[in-house]
């Protein structure tokens, strides 16, 4: 089909250009990925944080050995509790606050916390737009687990997309770690209840 060696060479280059470009891009991305990642920033513990759909303000953190906010603990367990004020920044009632806080460097038997409305211990109610509520995040821990006096909690946020890629509907996607907030952890004595 091809008449000269030159045209053959040209065909090879033309056909291979895409592959070469792909290889270059992949190599560059690999090189950037190998760079040390930026550590997520420290967030102020005494100011409200805009974290995607939630505005959060941590209030206090403590370890409890008694039943609190209606969350019963198994015998021998204790619980790490983070109380925070949550405000729904979106346009509709929502309860996607399960992953907003996560304690760093602690061995959790179950990484999903129990979350209760501090007002009346309702478990995981929907929060309504613009209405701030004190919520208690309760992580059960083994009775002998060590909890540092100052504990950092990772704060996760999501980004809003007016049109998602699948249906073109608005929504919150691509969760990312917004930063870290460090709280002193009080150790409540047994007679909490």
């Amino acid at each position, binding site marked *: 089909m091809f008449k000269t060696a030159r045209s053959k060479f040209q065909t090879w280059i033309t056909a291979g250009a895409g592959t070469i470009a792909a290889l270059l891009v992949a190599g560059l991305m690999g090189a950037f990925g190998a760079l040390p990642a930026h550590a997520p920033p420290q967030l102020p513990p005494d100011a409200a944080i805009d974290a995607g759909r939630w505005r959060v303000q941590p209030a206090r953190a403590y370890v409890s050995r008694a039943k609190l906010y209606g969350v019963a603990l198994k015998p021998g367990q204790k619980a790490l509790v983070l109380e925070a004020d949550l405000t729904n920044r979106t346009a*509709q009632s929502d309860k996607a606050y399960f992953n907003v806080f996560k304690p760093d460097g602690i061995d959790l038997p179950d990484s999903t916390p129990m979350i209760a*409305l501090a007002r009346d211990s309702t478990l995981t109610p929907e929060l*309504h737009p613009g209405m701030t509520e004190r919520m208690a995040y309760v992580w059960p821990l083994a009775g002998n687990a060590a909890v540092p006096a100052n504990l950092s909690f990772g704060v996760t946020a999501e980004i809003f997309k007016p049109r998602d890629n699948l249906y073109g509907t*608005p929504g919150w996607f691509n969760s990312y770690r917004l930063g870290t907030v460090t709280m002193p952890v009080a150790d409540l004595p047994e007679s909490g209840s």
Partner: protein
Amino acid sequence: MRIRAIGNLLIVAATVVLSYGMQVSKPHYAELTAPIPIDGAMHDTVRARSFDVRLDRMVFARTLKTNQFGQERLLTTSGLWAVAATNLTATSTSTTVADGTWQGPTGLRYRQTERLSYRQDMPPHAVDPELERSGLFVFELPADQIRGASLLIAARQFGPLDAQARISLDAVPTGADGQPADVLPLYDLDAPAPPQGQTRQDQTRQGKT
């Protein structure tokens, strides 16, 4: 030749304008599959596809009083409680009406509270043809979401292309500050006309033997 070129250019330009206009005005997928609203006012019977609903009464209160397993509970809120007392009937087949949403004047959507879900007169309401049943929808709202709001009632929460009753709440008297004229300090949910002792026997779950 020149005229022809200009004509072609005009056609291309017109096509670009038309395509751009179509792209901009294309409705969202969410809008295309949204529930179909049926408008009505307070005290009117609004006829949705599978049920009829009439909003009889709106009560606003700072605190709700309720009984849970024989124990008295007081429910507080950072805003106001809005209790919508409705009258429901099924149109042709027994069905359930489960979703109530308060749409504020700027479009914010407050779904019915989940803090009272143990009560009998809370959604889902089981309704039968030609049998009137009273059902409550209870919301937690900031006080500035009351003037110009509407109450949305649908058979279920995600009902694409199903009917949704949209009841305008303009009849609710509000003061100059937008707050409702009448806010009770405490409203006892068990004090008014007791709910009819009628609930749907669950078809899928086990009843009594």
